[in-house]
């Protein structure tokens, strides 16, 4: 059931081209029903009826412990509902927002694959399966950021996002394998029940930092944050969905999911607090310097990601609860604000906050949604964001009455958040009307409906927190090791906490923020002038390292692949010679070789013919003769195969030889006359190399024949081939059954080779898109 719900997105992605045959609008609306039905499925099956903890398992690669294990607990459910819920809004929104885009079908394919793999991440219990889905989200994100692929900047940003998150993912894979080495388990549920074993292991720290390498790059923590603002090159619905509500939260998801295993370790808490805190504070400040609506939202998203990391680092039950509430609140208001930014862009043709104002006259519905979202972002009572901010302050206070740094960082980040909320959600709509070009217009009904719903959900959850309270409490216990029952059940959400220090802090933040906004005409120019020091802009390091990477790739290509076929062959043979002779002479006992074999008459005949043809290949003065002589060598090798009882091999060799000669003839037929360019010294060099390779191969083969294969192999295949594989030809049964996966890999490689030949010869630079 869960497996099917994950795969349905990928399945529909395969059908997109056919659905678009029905017409672009109906096609995109039908596709938009997919996230909606998944949302309802999760809501009714797990949200309302209490099916939580449902576990599902299919064999996938049992020999390595990699199986399709899926589990739906409260924590996963919250994510699944966010993914499909915001997904529904974004899918419908895009059908209008991108209505004129010629590549709308591609867009839906990418985003469907993304949604499916994101769901896969959050409900996988097996770490390797989760990792596979993790990589899928990186790839679909790459495709979506580079969606306007004709623009240099889009391609640059897409590459950057892929390289940063991709290299982080490699670290994550290594971390998963280390955890497997420590515990021998592949499932989160098992890993999370043995924190003592993990934390006392010598591999604990490497494993932890490697996992964090994956999580920090994905969730754009400093110093890996720079790819996220650049990812705003993607169409706005993508920014709302991937780069705010869901994908960038995958890192947060992972850190909390694995928290029970690392919980309590001082290194874990310190690393998360420090990196999260720095990201939270600096990103919030950077947000104030932006004038592009989407970039403001991108930096505030970064700031929230930092806050969530910090909360996991604080690690108390209250902090985990705050993390989950903040996460839900953020998905709702930030999703709304991004979609509003798209609507503004659509209606006015600009996203520059200095050029727009007083749009509420022209876009009244959008203005209402934006105001609600901005108030939630600023933490104004009675919106859901207010509850989130209260819990955040509570967690920060509880953790660190002594640790003023944490508290100060939280305070200032919250303050900047209030200002950014005003900049992005309030001022574009209120005050004096101004717009750059023609008169702005309201977005279409379907576009506004979506973000109005998310905006009002922020209000609803604020007024009636009981709706989510239970699930949040349960999710908190999902990500906290051995949460005492009394603590868990006491964690109810409420709008009103009474007159306490936290409330006054909230009000103080709000008042100060409004104060800054009042004097924005004077303050903003100053803020925009203050630049962060160089070392906080690691995107330069990225540029330098990619330049080095490309430079060294160019250098090795120049050395290894210089365009002369003879050099390739020399290099390949030299490598073969060195590696083979090294292992032959270093590790093997050459004395087992016996030089006395009974030789028959026909063997001598074949050997003589092969030698004569080989000499002819070298000596011939025309290409056709050389190819024909080479063909003779091949055919006689095939004869050897058939004599020694390898009919399959012989058969294949005959056909390959025939086809090779045909191919050669087709090419040679039209080449210019054969000329001998090579000097004597070259020939001598080639001769020595050829002789050495020949000698090594001879020794190798003598060694192989001297050490006979243990008979068990032959017996195993001989006995099981007919019973298991239903075939008497062992070679073929091995190819299509025992080792079918290898064969599949081989035919894929062959196919790529054919496409490579085609691409090399046929594709011209100016052909553009077409293949």
């Amino acid at each position: 059931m869960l497996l099917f719900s994950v795969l349905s997105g990928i399945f529909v992605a395969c059908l997109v081209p056919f659905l678009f045959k029905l017409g672009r609008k109906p096609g995109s609306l039908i596709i938009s029903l997919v996230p909606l039905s998944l949302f309802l499925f999760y809501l009714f099956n797990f949200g309302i009826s209490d099916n939580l903890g449902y576990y599902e398992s299919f064999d996938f690669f049992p020999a390595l412990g990699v199986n399709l294990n899926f589990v739906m607990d409260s924590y996963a459910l919250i994510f699944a509902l966010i993914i499909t819920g915001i997904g529904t809004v974004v899918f419908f929104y895009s059908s209008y927002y991108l209505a004129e885009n010629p590549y709308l079908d591609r867009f839906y394919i990418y985003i469907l694959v993304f949604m499916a793999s994101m769901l896969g991440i959050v409900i996988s219990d097996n770490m390797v399966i989760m990792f596979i889905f993790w990589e899928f989200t990186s790839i679909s994100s790459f495709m979506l950021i580079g969606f306007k692929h004709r623009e240099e900047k889009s391609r640059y940003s897409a590459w950057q996002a892929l390289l940063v998150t991709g290299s982080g993912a490699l670290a994550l894979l290594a971390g998963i394998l280390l955890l497997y080495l420590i515990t021998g388990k592949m499932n989160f549920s098992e890993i999370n029940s043995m924190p003592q074993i993990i934390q006392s292991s010598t591999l604990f720290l490497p494993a932890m930092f490697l996992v964090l390498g994956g999580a920090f790059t994905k969730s754009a923590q400093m110093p890996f944050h720079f790819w996220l603002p650049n990812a705003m090159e993607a169409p706005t619905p993508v920014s709302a969905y991937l780069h705010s509500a869901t994908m960038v939260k995958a890192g947060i998801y992972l850190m909390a999911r694995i928290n029970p295993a690392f919980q309590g370790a001082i290194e874990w808490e310190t690393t998360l607090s420090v990196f999260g805190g720095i990201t939270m504070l600096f990103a919030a400040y950077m947000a104030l310097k932006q004038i592009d609506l989407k970039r403001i939202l991108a930096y505030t998203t970064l700031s929230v990601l930092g806050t969530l990391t910090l909360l996991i680092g604080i690690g108390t039950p209250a902090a985990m609860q705050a993390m989950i509430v903040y996460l839900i609140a953020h998905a709702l208001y930030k999703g709304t604000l991004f979609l509003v930014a798209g609507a503004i862009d659509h209606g006015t043709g600009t996203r520059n906050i200095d050029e727009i104002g007083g749009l509420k006259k022209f876009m009244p519905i959008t203005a209402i949604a934006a105001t609600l979202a901005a108030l939630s972002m600023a933490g104004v009572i009675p919106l859901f964001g207010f509850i989130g901010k209260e819990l955040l302050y509570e967690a920060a206070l509880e953790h660190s009455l002594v640790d003023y740094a944490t508290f100060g960082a939280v305070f200032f980040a919250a303050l900047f958040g209030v200002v950014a909320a005003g900049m992005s959600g309030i001022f574009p709509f209120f005050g004096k009307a101004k717009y750059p070009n023609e008169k702005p217009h309201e977005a279409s009904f379907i576009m506004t409906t979506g973000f109005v719903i998310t905006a009002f959900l922020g209000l609803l959850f604020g007024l009636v927190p009981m709706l989510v309270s239970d699930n949040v409490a349960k999710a908190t216990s999902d990500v906290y090791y051995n949460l005492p029952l009394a603590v868990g059940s006491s964690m109810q959400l409420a709008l009103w906490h009474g007159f306490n220090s936290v409330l006054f802090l909230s009000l103080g933040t709000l008042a100060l923020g409004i104060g800054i906004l009042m004097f924005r005409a004077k303050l903003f120019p100053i803020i925009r002038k203050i630049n962060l020091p160089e070392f906080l802009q690691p995107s330069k390091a990225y540029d330098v390292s990619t330049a080095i990477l490309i430079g060294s790739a160019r250098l090795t290509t120049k050395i290894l692949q210089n365009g002369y076929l003879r050099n390739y062959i020399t290099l390949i043979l030299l490598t073969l010679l060195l590696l083979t002779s090294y292992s032959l002479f270093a590790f093997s006992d050459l004395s087992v070789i016996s030089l006395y074999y009974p030789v028959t008459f026909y063997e001598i005949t074949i050997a003589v013919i092969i030698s004569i043809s080989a000499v002819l290949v070298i000596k011939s003065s025309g290409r056709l003769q050389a190819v024909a002589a080479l063909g003779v060598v091949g055919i006689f090798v095939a004869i050897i195969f058939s004599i020694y009882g390898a009919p399959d091999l012989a058969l294949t060799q005959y056909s390959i030889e025939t086809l090779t000669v045909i191919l050669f003839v087709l090419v040679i037929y039209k080449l210019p006359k054969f000329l001998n360019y090579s000097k004597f010294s070259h020939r001598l060099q080639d001769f020595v190399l050829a002789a050495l390779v020949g000698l090594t191969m001879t020794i190798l083969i003598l060694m192989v024949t001297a050490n006979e294969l243990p008979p068990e192999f032959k017996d195993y295949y001989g006995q099981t081939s007919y019973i298991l594989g239903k075939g008497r030809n062992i070679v073929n049964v091995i190819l299509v059954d025992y080792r079918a996966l290898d064969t599949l890999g081989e035919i894929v490689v062959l196919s790529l080779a054919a496409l490579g030949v085609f691409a090399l010869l046929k594709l011209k630079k100016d052909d553009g898109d077409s293949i």
Partner: protein
Amino acid sequence: MKSIILQTATRYLLPILLLFSFFLLFRGHNSPGGGFVGGLVAAAAYALYSIAFGVEEAKKLLRIEPVYLIATGLMFALISGMIAFFSFDTFMTGKWSDFNFPLFGKLGSPLLFDLGVYVVVIGITLKILFTISEEVKP
């Protein structure tokens, strides 16, 4: 290079070679043969035809662009691996019919896999053959 003898011979050889390639494909499970060799033989048949009548004629005879053959073959191979999902077995678990079909004997997913290899090999060989012989046209 138009030779009446070669053309006439090819007209008779082509169907025989194709039939032979099928024969190799289907007998492969129990005796020497299989999808790879079968595919090579079939491709050689078309190569012969393109030598006798020219590449354009061979393309016309094939009717379908070789790239589609590659894609179809890979799809067959992939689907043959997924058949096992229906009984909740792992990818590529061989599944066989319980009874014998006339001429073929037992049918099973490895046979579909072999068919995939056969089609892929034809596609690859012909794609390379056609591309190269067109490119060198002066």
